[in-house]
């Protein structure tokens, strides 16, 4: 489903060039649960952005479900993000003025889904993360774990093929983190491809496959190595 071939990502900085990714080749099959680990500055986030079609490789090819993302226009990549990819962020990125329900409806609102359909679908997804009773609460009335579960609901509301999570538990206490990972893993079991960026070895250990990034280069390692 995901195929990276010799991907480089470079940024010009002053006179020189920073290599965020160096020659990364990686294949992820549908339904996989992959943990992307590595120290900060290793290129994890850059890789995640490329996987999420927010960024494009400077060099190399990225194929998502058989399409070469590098050749797509911004509008086409926007469509991919809208329909195939869900994002979960470390800082939740919920809109504070909207209720949980409103936040979950947001992708559908901008996708032009009619109001009634939005209502039903949002309620359905909120129920699946166990937050239906909190649907009318605004983010500041929710705990960190609840907020992240709302964010997960928002990520999957458009029925994407994969969810990209950037440090999803980085801002949560251990119990909330357990809860959040439980939700994500449950969705993964139902066939959702899951890529989690983390530097938490315990979290990474829960993934079936761990990809190590170091200085922009891959060091594939078997699961459970830590």
């Amino acid at each position, binding site marked *: 489903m995901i195929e990276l071939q010799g991907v480089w990502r470079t940024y010009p900085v002053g006179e020189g060039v920073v290599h965020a990714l160096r020659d990364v080749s990686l294949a992820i099959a549908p339904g996989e649960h992959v943990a992307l680990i590595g120290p900060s500055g290793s290129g994890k986030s850059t890789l995640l*952005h490329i996987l*999420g079609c*927010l*960024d494009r490789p400077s060099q190399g090819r990225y194929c998502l479900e058989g399409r070469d993302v590098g050749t797509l226009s*911004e*509008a086409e990549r*926007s*469509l*991919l*993000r*809208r*329909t195939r*990819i869900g*994002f979960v*962020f470390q*800082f939740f*990125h919920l*809109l*504070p*003025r*909207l209720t949980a329900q409103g936040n979950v409806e*947001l*992708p559908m*609102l*901008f*996708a*032009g889904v*009619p*109001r009634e359909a939005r209502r039903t679908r949002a309620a359905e997804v909120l129920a699946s993360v166990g937050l239906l009773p909190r649907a009318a609460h605004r983010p500041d009335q929710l705990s960190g774990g609840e907020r992240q579960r709302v964010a997960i609901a*928002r990520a999957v509301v*458009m029925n994407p093929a994969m969810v990209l999570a950037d440090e999803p538990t980085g801002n949560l206490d251990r119990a909330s983190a357990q809860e959040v990972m439980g939700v994500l893993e449950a969705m993964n079991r139902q066939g959702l491809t899951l890529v989690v960026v983390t530097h938490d070895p315990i979290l990474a250990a829960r993934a079936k496959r761990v990809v190590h990034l170091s200085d922009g280069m891959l060091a594939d390692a078997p699961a459970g190595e830590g």
Partner: protein
Amino acid sequence: MAFLDLLGFALGALRGHRLRTALSVTGVAIGITAVLALTALGEGARRYIVDEFATLGSNLVIILPGKVETTGGVPFGGVTHDLTLEDHAALARLGRLARAAPIAVATETLRHGDLGRSAPILGTTADYQEIRRLRLAAGTFLPSGDPDRSGTEIVLGTKVAQELFRGESPLGQVVRVGPDRFRVVGVLAPRGLSMLGFDLDEAAFIPVRTAMRLFNRTSLFRVVAEVRIFAEMDLAKADVLALLKDRHRAEDVTVFTQDALLASFSAILRVLTLSLAGIASVSLVVAGVGIMNVMLVSVTERRAEIGLLKALGAPAPRILLAFLAEAVILAALGGAAGLAAGAAGVGLLALVYPDFPVAIPLWAVGAAVTLSFLVGVGFGVWPARRATRLDPIAALARR
């Protein structure tokens, strides 16, 4: 449907910044109010002047001896004929004219006892009262009858009467003009300065034949006539010209109508109103810059939100529309508030100065609404475009 949803989204965003929203709405409101108030004042001035003309009688035809325009080829200097009382009599018989009054005018000194006052004296007939819509404070106007009759009646303007008689009743008293003695039969009601710059309060009226003898004139100063049907103004004018051309065997009179004067005054004042509106709309531009500022701050402040929307795959045109909708809502609210404030202000003005016919012309309302919408779109586009061009990665990275 989708647009309504975006509108709802934009409203929600505005509600999050009440003070900022209120301030920029106020800016637009002030602009719209200014446009409406100034156009209402201009329109009021126009109506005031038009009304003033109407009381003079806008269905008047005024005939003066001599040709005002230069027409080449008049041999030997083109002698102009006098405009005589006989001409007036012929004019008065024209079917399209309701009535006509001859006028001979000169400034003479009026004397009563040892008091004297220099005043313009109009020699005319009873018809003049009707034509000029004169009202009398006391007595009667000049007696109707044959214009050729030399009478010794005099009617005084209100100021002249006051100055000469110092509070006593002038009716029946004798006023001398040069060697002649006149008997006061009436005093005009105060009228004030007419638009043509002639103060009827300062004037006196005597029979026209007497006046011509007294002033030693052979020609009338002019003839004023009232058209029977307003719509036939041009036909009446042509009739007058044809008649006098026939009588004088030359085209040697000038005929002008007050509706032409009225129309040009009205046009001038409309331009004035428009320029006032133009000046006022400068404040709308200022308000527009205010909206732009608010929207730019909003875009900068909501970088994370925009980044999120882009990460969620919101199409760029929809993001643009959402931010544009915010700007338009600001402008529309401002426009509505401005309309209300403007209408209230003009209403208040009408209460305080009931004589001044202030009114907001309909075109100004339309222009104000259109302007506020244009301000919203015009000054909202750039910030909205900035929003859609934001790099989602950079926008999300900050927190």
